[in-house]
């Protein structure tokens, strides 16, 4: 990388900036201070709710030897950069930034505070003091897809997408592959909500899908609004997203994907305490416990439940990969040869549908 004069000057300036902060960061008591930046409200019942549960688990595990702080509903962009800087100034030793859009802000702030450790969820940019972590949600999608294929009577599964990014497309593909395996006639209808959390928009999306004949709804958005819409419709199956959403069990919510960040958060805080923290890239799934499958309710026939649990076991012990060939891309070209599995690089940047899904990824 070549530095222009201006960039070099900026670098020097930020080093001076960092030096002026180093003192207050060290002049703390021996409590480890941990900051969390959330993209939604802690009461969203989904994504942020689970990160906050992870924070509470850290507090419970370490007791008085840690102090945690958080700021919720932080907009991605300059606001998040300010909030992170503020936490670092206030003496945080470790800061978890829990949304993809916090990526560049995290890298910027981390450069100014070399003594503070940062953990960015779902991103791909790392530095000496920035780790990334994410969960293999697509493993859970495979199980959802299997159940969805068996449960649908109209052969139409609705899918509420948030943003057409690799993370979400991967989930759609994984769910579709396994829905087709359990029901060759199944079709997916996909609606893009362009939000992670907006109960009104999510409810609208669910209603549109139900009107179009979907009797199973999968969602990659974080509120329980689609569950409520399904409950109102009466005969529509849903799955909890990010959180168990068990208040809608046993029906319409028949199972769920649960993000369990607690073990990871506790391990990373321990590493900071021990002085063994290093920059890493973690991508764990069902096997490591980062992705949980919520209880499959009695609304699901016993044999389907047994198949789903068998699938879960094979994903957990690694004997089966959710993307195993033969698989073609939507345009008919080969994606994976028979028996081949997708590598992490392909999965991380996935920007195509597999064969059989109708419609186009919005551009």
């Amino acid at each position, binding site marked *: 990388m070549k530095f222009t004069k201006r960039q070099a000057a900026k670098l020097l300036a930020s080093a001076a900036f960092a030096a002026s902060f180093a003192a207050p960061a060290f002049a703390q008591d021996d409590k480890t201070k941990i900051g969390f930046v959330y993209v939604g409200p*802690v009461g969203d019942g989904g994504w942020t709710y689970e990160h906050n549960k992870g924070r509470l688990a850290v507090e419970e595990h370490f007791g008085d030897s840690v102090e945690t*702080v*958080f700021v919720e509903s932080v907009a*991605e*962009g300059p*606001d998040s950069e300010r909030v992170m800087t*503020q936490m670092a100034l206030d003496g945080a030793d470790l800061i978890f930034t829990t949304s993809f*859009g916090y990526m*560049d802000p995290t890298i910027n702030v981390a450069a100014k505070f070399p003594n503070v450790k940062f953990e960015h969820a779902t991103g791909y940019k790392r530095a000496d003091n920035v780790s990334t972590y994410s969960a293999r949600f697509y493993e859970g999608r495979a199980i959802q897809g299997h159940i969805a294929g068996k449960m649908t009577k109209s052969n139409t599964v609705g899918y509420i997408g948030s943003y057409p990014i690799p993370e979400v497309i991967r989930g759609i593909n994984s769910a579709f592959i396994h829905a087709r395996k359990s029901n060759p006639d199944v079709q997916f209808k996909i609606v893009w909500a362009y939000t992670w959390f907006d109960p009104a928009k999510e409810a609208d999306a669910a209603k549109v899908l139900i009107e179009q004949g979907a009797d199973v709804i999968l969602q990659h958005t974080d509120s329980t609004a689609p569950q409520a819409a399904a409950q109102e419709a009466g005969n529509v199956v849903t799955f909890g997203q990010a959180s168990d959403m068990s208040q809608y069990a046993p029906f319409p919510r028949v199972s769920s994907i649960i993000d369990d960040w607690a073990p990871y958060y506790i391990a990373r805080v321990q590493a900071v305490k021990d002085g063994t923290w290093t920059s890493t890239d973690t991508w764990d799934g069902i096997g490591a416990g980062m992705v949980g499958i919520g209880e499959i309710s009695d609304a699901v026939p016993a044999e389907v439940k047994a198949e789903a649990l068998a699938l879960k076991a094979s994903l957990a012990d690694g004997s089966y990969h959710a993307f195993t060939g033969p698989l073609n891309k939507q345009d008919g070209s080969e994606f994976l040869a028979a028996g081949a599995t997708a590598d992490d690089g392909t999965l991380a940047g996935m920007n195509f549908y597999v064969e059989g899904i109708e419609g186009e990824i919005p551009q």
Partner: protein
Amino acid sequence: MIALEKRPEPSRTFSLAAPLLAVLATMLFGGLLFALLGKDPLEAIRTIFWEPLFGEFAFFYRPQLLIKGAPLVLIAIGLSLGFKAGIWNIGAEGQYIMGALFGAGVGLAFYPMESVFIFPLMVLAGAFGGWIWAMIPAVLKVKFGTNEILVSLMLVYVAEQFLASMSLGLMKNPEGFGFPGSRNLQQYASAHNAELITGSGMHWGVVAAFIAVIFGYVLLARHRLGFAIRVTGDAPRAAAFSGVNPARLVLFCLGMSGLLAGLAGVFEVSGPAGQVTIDFNVGYGFTAIIVAFLGRLNPVGILLAGGLMALTYIGGDIAQSKLGLPAAAIQVFQGMLLFFLLAFDLFTNYRLRLGRTEVA
């Protein structure tokens, strides 16, 4: 008996005192809210209003006030011109987005060429983007008598779709592993709206905001066009008789507010935000409506109001982190500010009569 009585003339004292009373009442009732949530109200108020300005890390927060306040002031100045004349541009958020897209589009088109002309071109493109987006409701209103409130508001959602499309398609970073969002303009020297003095928070958008305040003041107080705007708002019929061309006024007011919103957008995308992303817009265009009214549609008032709003945002985040106040409580607190302002505003034109009212 309590009764409201119309004042023979609007009270000048109350017009000036209303914002101050509103802030005091907000502190009082906000403090009560915080106390009910089990937080020390004095500590909370102190954290929100004092900490960013005079606290331990004020050297960091003060520049942040400029960064957060500048787009609010820039947009609100433009809006206030129309609001004064009874022309309601509610879609500044969309014009802000389009300004950012036009500006960033020009910058990204030149990547990786380095030239001092790129940034000025981006600014011009951004101003044009905001202006052209505001001209849609303006021309529709002039030609077909459509309602500019509805058209400008609806165009916000159209602009958001453009923003999503650009983040996912045309402007997507080719080195971004398929993730949405453009290249970061902060890492492209020719397109970067950097701080003029490092650590000061002073970027070109802040400079533009101050210039806009002066421009707004001169226009309204000294210029014939400013007179036309004021008289149209106060007495439309009188304005028509005095030769004000209402169509031209609509085109000017909507165009100018769009232009300033577009400028705010391009300065933000090339500076503090750095990137075109799906969630680039965070509501500056809507908050600026509050700022315009909080500042009594007066340029200097808007400058102060923009600063105050920025303060509650920044102080609010500090209070969340330090005291564990929920974000919703901070939002209620900000809502109270507008609510009390409107309530006290009533007393500019009315006065309270206690006791018996005389029979007329």
